[in-house]
């Protein structure tokens, strides 16, 4: 397991814009960011989810279903067998070991910062891990007919009260949802509800609707925190990937 997680713990470059103050961050008297201040709102009255966020530890990266009992994951038989085999093999075949991307929804749990930005017509997420981006369209477009299935799929977003709800399809069927190896098929429909509870805390409620791999939809909730006064760094997996040859499995 240790070797698997090295990929996500690669020490990236030293922060170059560390301590660059986050604009408009609420501060306590000692100048620290007040993480429990109310969630900010934009001019449109919607909760502003922009900022740099980071998962709390490795828990959901190792096991997206960490908060569920083992029998609460409604595997189809083949998916249960595949999960068992992947665990027995110490995750040898995890695409991440080859520097392939983390797919949706594993990206929400990768323990490195990601930055949410809002633009007309889209929400953008920049990931420090792999220096990769994800576009979530909010302009009402639908998936193009010729869309080629991919690691990040095709995502659209809308507001439901204070939740920013992201629906993703068009995934490529190669995705491991965690390093344990929960599979996700190309029939998957993933819903992520981003809910900023207060200034410094977000819940991401993730619902997996994948009738090929699971007998019914199931839901987990992850809880990243805000990283203030900093900036993303560059992290290029291919630069120095020494993991793959050390991960031998059974």
């Amino acid at each position, binding site marked *: 397991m240790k070797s698997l997680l090295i990929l996500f713990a690669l020490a990236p*470059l*030293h922060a*170059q*814009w560390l301590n*660059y103050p986050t*604009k408009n961050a609420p501060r306590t008297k000692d100048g620290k960011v007040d993480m429990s201040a109310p969630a900010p709102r934009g001019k449109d009255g919607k909760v502003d989810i922009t900022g740099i966020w980071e998962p709390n530890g490795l828990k959901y990266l190792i096991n997206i279903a960490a908060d569920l009992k083992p029998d609460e994951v409604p595997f189809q038989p083949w998916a249960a067998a595949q999960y068992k085999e992947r665990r027995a093999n110490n995750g040898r075949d995890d695409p991440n070991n*080859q*520097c*392939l*991307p983390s797919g949706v929804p594993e990206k929400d749990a990768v323990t490195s910062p990601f930055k949410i*930005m809002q*633009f007309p017509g*889209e929400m*953008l997420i*920049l990931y420090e891990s792999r*220096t*990769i*981006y994800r*576009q979530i369209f909010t302009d009402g477009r639908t998936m*193009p007919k010729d869309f*080629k299935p*991919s*690691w*990040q799929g095709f995502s659209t977003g809308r507001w439901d009260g204070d939740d920013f709800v992201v629906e993703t399809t068009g995934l490529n069927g190669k995705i491991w949802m965690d390093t344990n190896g929960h599979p996700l098929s190309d029939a998957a429909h993933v819903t992520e509800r981003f809910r900023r509870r207060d200034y410094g805390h977000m819940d991401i409620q993730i619902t997996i609707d994948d009738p090929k791999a699971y007998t019914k939809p199931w839901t987990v909730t992850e809880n990243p925190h805000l990283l203030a006064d900093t*900036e*993303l*760094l*560059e992290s*290029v997996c*291919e*630069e120095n990937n020494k993991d793959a040859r050390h991960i031998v499995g059974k």
Partner: protein
Amino acid sequence: MLALFAAAARAQDLSGVWLPEARPGVSHSNDDPDANCTLSGVPRIDLGPKPFKILQSSDEVVILYEAFTTFRQVFTDGRALPRDPQPAWMGYSVGKWEGDTLVVETIGFNDITWLDNAGTRHSESLHVTERFHRRDLKHLDIQITVDDPKALQHPITYTEHADLAQGTELHEFICLEGRK
């Protein structure tokens, strides 16, 4: 304050999907660092041939590249370039508006990337200036100046052109899969 508003009002809208004009000389060399699926660096990534997309906020300009599904952040909030930065593939970029031209200064590169498809090398002292100017609705000019006193006898300046790719969107492109 009035002057600030006036300056902000001049910022041009560069946003859109842009397709660099085709140019000869795509590298097939085994020595090409791009063959390792590491990032191409600046200014080589401006050469395409894959499209890029510009998104713009009041504090920064983000350039999304279809190549490598990677991005650059260009901070326009007035921050200075970092001092003694850790070398990076894509460097560190800040931008400011000069009239309706976005002037992007980038430093802090490693010395592995190539400046162009022909394999021109550079040192970690590389300083790239890109002047993004939207000539009209459908045309973007990027005047590039490459300065590197350790590797080049004098600065080199040239201009790249890109055309607006209306009605299209970037595709996910994973280098490791693309080279199979």
